[in-house]
């Protein structure tokens, strides 16, 4: 599994390439700053699935997982591990 920092970099890359958003830091609050809303959150998850080649288990996603790039990195790490275990 990629280390957390690398995952966060990948998330940043997806945000800028696919959603055309630049985020100041891995800890910037994506929900409070309005980067993610009901549409962009789902779009981002679909792009992440595509980039990392796994299926997000939506029912296991909590709002805090979308809070920042760092949190998204952790979510991907967790879900990828769960996919690999199946």
């Amino acid at each position: 599994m990629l280390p957390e920092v690398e995952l966060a970099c990948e998330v940043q890359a997806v945000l800028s390439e696919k959603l055309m958003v630049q985020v100041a830091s891995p800890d910037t609050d994506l929900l409070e700053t309005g980067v993610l809303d009901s549409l962009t959150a789902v779009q981002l998850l679909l792009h992440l699935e595509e980039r990392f080649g796994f299926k997000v288990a939506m029912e296991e996603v909590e709002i805090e997982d979308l809070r920042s790039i760092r949190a998204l990195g952790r979510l991907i790490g967790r879900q990828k591990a769960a996919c690999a275990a199946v």
Partner: protein
Amino acid sequence: MKRLQDWLTLQAERRPEACAVVFGRQRATYGEIEMASNRLARALRAAGCRRGDRVALLLPKSIQALIGLFAALKADCIYVPLDTASPAARLRRMLVASDSRCLLANGSTAALLNEMAGHARGSAMPRVGWMDGGATLHHGLTPEFYWGDVLRLSAAALDSANNETDPVHILFTSGSTGIPKGVVITHANVIHFVEWGIRYFGISASDRISGHPPLHFDLSTFDIYGAVAGGAQLHLVPPEVNILPHQLAAFIRDSELTQWFSVPSILNHMARFAVIRTNDFPSLRRLLWCGEKFPTPALIYWMRRLPHVEFFNLYGPTETTIASSCYRVPQCPESDTVEIPIGEPCDGERLLVLDETMRPVALGQAGDLHVAGVGLSPGYWRDPQKTREVFLPHPERPDSSDRVYRTGDLAKIGDDGSIYLIGRSDSQIKSRGYRIELGEIETTAHALPEVQEAAVVAIDSPGLEGATICCAFVPCPGSELSTLFLKKQLAELLPHYMLPSRWMVLDRMPRNSHGKVDRPSLKEQFRRAAVHERSAVPVQGEKEAAHVA
């Protein structure tokens, strides 16, 4: 009932201890809202607010914001709900346009207010009422009063002079020339609709009603005043719950809602992620939507799972107050291609499908949909020209003062006598329930110094958006304008829901034989790019297919 605030006072007299609003862990009774809004109305008057003055609400949807709007009405004022998710530069323009005497804000919007004051460039800011403790404000802003001051004022009822013809609020919507338009809505406009709604849906004190849209969205008017008039509980949906469809479903379930009212894109979103169980939401009695077309496959998904619920399609632009017509879906549609009509006019309303000469069209023919009746706004705030353009003399009674509103929607009357929407006659689109003038995005992009020319078009989207906003632009010679940078600049001027999601950098704009931008060709190019992308990404394609199925 003559004024909206009288409903609150009536409930507070009858059932002061009854729960009026729930927001997360906070709850407030009718008595508490009544007393707090009386106090705040006194503070507004002391701050110089008089009958007809505007009070801007720079407050996210909350119990405090509801207290703010009732206080504004009790102080004989007109409230202007501002979208706290919009950029400061745009809000500042609305604030200037509304010429507000006072603005209510709190800690959660302090940074936004500071930024708005920074954009003021010498023009006066309204007096600020601070809805919590200390405030760190810049640019010479000092609150006129704090919440602590409000609490020291009398909670007794105060005499209001406003009547049914006074405006309640000004709701700003996207404007095609780049400047948002302020729609003025009166007490009578809202009262007519709410009284109809209470009768038609049978809303009572046993109801638990959703408060899903933000306050600057006119659907929220029915949630708030429908609940208060019926003595029901209003359950405000926390914004973070909105992001994940399974959490939204859990909210409806756990709050034991009896009425859910939202835009179709949200219902569609929940259907796509299959978050509704069979016989889910046992307390739910009715589900209402308005603002755009609800795709029939998603409606079938909902109706099959919730046989105990009644489904209603409401139709009406902001200018005609919440909704002008309503259709109760009698049974689950038999196939995905069944069209859902917009239904019968609500009491006191009329829908007319007219041709260019303002005569009724024949059955099955497309025409411009016009609305007449008690819901019609007096017009746009301080903009008689725009008002004249769309609020027209009634074609059947040209000598009277009766008017019709030209909605810009194209419609036809079906064989069954029902009215069906078929599109728009202009470049306005609906995306996630938001009404967007593509001209506003285009004008804003065009005004940026690095942009030589910009064109904005919309293409149909299979997903949640309804329509995908696409921007083609030609950078100024010598400028190294990237899409990323352009989007960042636009994000400082437009709300997020108006930002294009597809982009194209061009050396020059395609033009037709009249020298005008060739929009059909641009749309085709964006469509082809979208199809190409979907076919190149099988994982996502399969996923989408699975969700739709």
